[in-house]
């Protein structure tokens, strides 16, 4: 089933829709967002210069730092009176990235997610359990609105408390699980530990996964463990949240809702726009957002675009699975973590040195992080209590910024590797 007729427009029709919406967006940000007005002026571009879709290349790019520099509402194109919702993602220096939505934006969002969950197989007949964390993050509420749009019965379960998840799953007859792929694998493991068979004793049919990338091997593992059809979808709060793109039943890439999000692929080093099928950094321009229209957002995700017709009947462009990052962001259990966030915490913690090493690994199916730091302050050696208090202090500070628990390992000074060039402080063992 295809949710919206906009998913089957022929290329010329789609380009016409995109151009009209792009022109409107550029005009609005020029008039209403001082940041974009000066960025456009700096490039000598007026809204009237956007005459074809290719003219998108004249527009300035937006990066995550721009959200920080304009914290909290500097990039907004509407006043607070028109906003009906805020969300935020973890920030790299303590301040989160704030996003806002008008009533129409929430409608657009529900529509975009509605398309994705339909692609994934979910209909009004399904009972959908959302096991993403609720709160400021866009994941859980974004999926909820889209699932309600298609008429699925939503269980706003949130993450954690796995045994209770399983009880509800069994008792409510959950047919669709919405979570990170690694959490879904973890739940399956706990189901088996509880003496049940995830395939026989539960009724899951669909796995709608996001929040972190996954591999084909992981999909197979998920399908084998649960007996489900597993798809993944893609999005980020800066653009809208979940709802940018998702996989259909043909499993040949994620269809981008390109009547709302215009994609480009660039060479991350030169900024040069690359052609169809070439791998590079995904850049997205939102063309229907009211509260927070974003021009050419550099997602830092590496992928490629494919325009040939899909077996599912949709004509929208597909992006391949995310192949990596053009920066050093890590995704831990669906939470985005930058080494710079960890560094900032460590540098502000007394008693330890400035060098550190981050180890990321899997324990079972769950992501774990270990932070190794050098102890420099001998005054804590009076007692184990003081030494343990120091590790607890570091752990608590990291939790405040990252929202996740980490293991702290203290080592002697000068034992961590020193780097002369670009430091390689992250060891990802996953």
């Amino acid at each position, binding site marked *: 089933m295809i949710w919206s007729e906009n998913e089957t427009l022929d290329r010329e029709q789609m380009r016409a829709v995109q151009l009209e919406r792009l022109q409107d967006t550029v005009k609005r940000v020029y008039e209403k967002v001082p940041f974009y007005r000066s960025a456009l002026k700096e490039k000598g571009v007026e809204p009237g210069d956007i005459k074809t879709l290719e003219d998108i290349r004249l527009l300035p790019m937006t990066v995550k730092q721009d959200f920080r520099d304009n914290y909290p509402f500097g990039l907004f194109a509407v006043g607070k009176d028109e906003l009906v919702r805020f969300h935020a993602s973890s920030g790299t220096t303590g301040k989160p990235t704030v996003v806002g939505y008008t009533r129409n934006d929430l409608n657009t969002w529900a529509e975009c997610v509605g398309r994705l969950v339909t692609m994934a197989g979910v209909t009004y007949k399904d009972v959908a359990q959302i096991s993403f964390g609720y709160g400021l993050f866009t994941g859980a509420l974004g999926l909820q609105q889209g699932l309600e749009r298609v008429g699925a019965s939503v269980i706003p379960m949130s993450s954690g408390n796995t045994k209770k998840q399983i009880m509800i799953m069994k008792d409510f007859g959950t047919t669709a699980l919405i979570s990170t792929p690694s959490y879904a694998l973890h739940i399956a493991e706990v189901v088996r530990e509880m003496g049940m068979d995830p395939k026989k004793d539960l009724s899951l049919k669909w796995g709608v996964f996001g929040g972190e990338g996954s591999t084909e091997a992981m999909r197979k593992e998920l399908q084998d463990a649960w007996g489900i059809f597993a798809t993944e979808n893609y999005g980020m709060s800066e653009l809208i949240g979940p709802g940018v793109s998702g996989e259909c039943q043909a499993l040949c890439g994620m269809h981008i809702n390109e009547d709302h999000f215009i994609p480009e692929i660039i060479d991350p080093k030169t900024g040069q726009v690359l052609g169809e099928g070439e791998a590079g950094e995904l850049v997205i321009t939102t063309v229907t957002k009211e509260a927070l229209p974003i021009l050419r957002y550099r997602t830092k995700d590496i992928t490629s675009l494919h325009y040939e017709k899909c077996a599912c009947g949709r004509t929208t462009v597909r992006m391949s699975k995310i192949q990596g990052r053009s920066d050093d962001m890590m995704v831990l259990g669906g939470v985005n973590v930058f080494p710079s966030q960890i560094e900032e915490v460590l540098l502000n913690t007394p008693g330890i040195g400035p060098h550190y090493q981050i180890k990321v690994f899997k324990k079972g199916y769950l992501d774990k992080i270990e932070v190794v730091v050098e*102890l420099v302050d*001998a005054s804590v*050696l*009076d007692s*184990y209590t003081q030494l343990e208090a120091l590790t607890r202090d570091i752990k608590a500070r990291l939790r405040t910024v990252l929202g996740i628990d980490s293991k702290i*390992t*203290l*080592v002697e000074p*000068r034992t961590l590797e020193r780097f002369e060039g670009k430091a390689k402080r992250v060891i990802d063992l996953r």
Partner: protein
Amino acid sequence: MLIKQISIFIPNRKGTLARLTSKLRENGIDIRAISVFDTTEFGILRLVVDDAEKTLDMLKSEGFVAKVSDVIAVEPEDKPGSLDEIFHILADNDINIEYIYSYVMRRHELPYIVLKTSDMERAVGVLKDNGIKVIE
């Protein structure tokens, strides 16, 4: 009345102790007492040596995290109940013992007991007042 003890941070890794003792050996430092408890992640090694300040300088220059602190060394009498007597004296005076270990000096028949307490000066005072032999 108080003796100098060195506390050294020891990550729980193979070879850390050997690296430490070889540095002590190279520098001709005589270990009088050594104590470390088992922990999962890291340990604090307590050391009594002949020249604490010199040893500390050497350890720091070798990259160890170490500090000198004061402890009490007492010589209990060789009879049942002598440790019980010492602990009661401290308890009755509301002094908490943080840790304790013992060491034997050559040419002495009896082990010395090293004590770290919550109030070192007062602990020495009450022990002496009660006739306990505190090593100078």
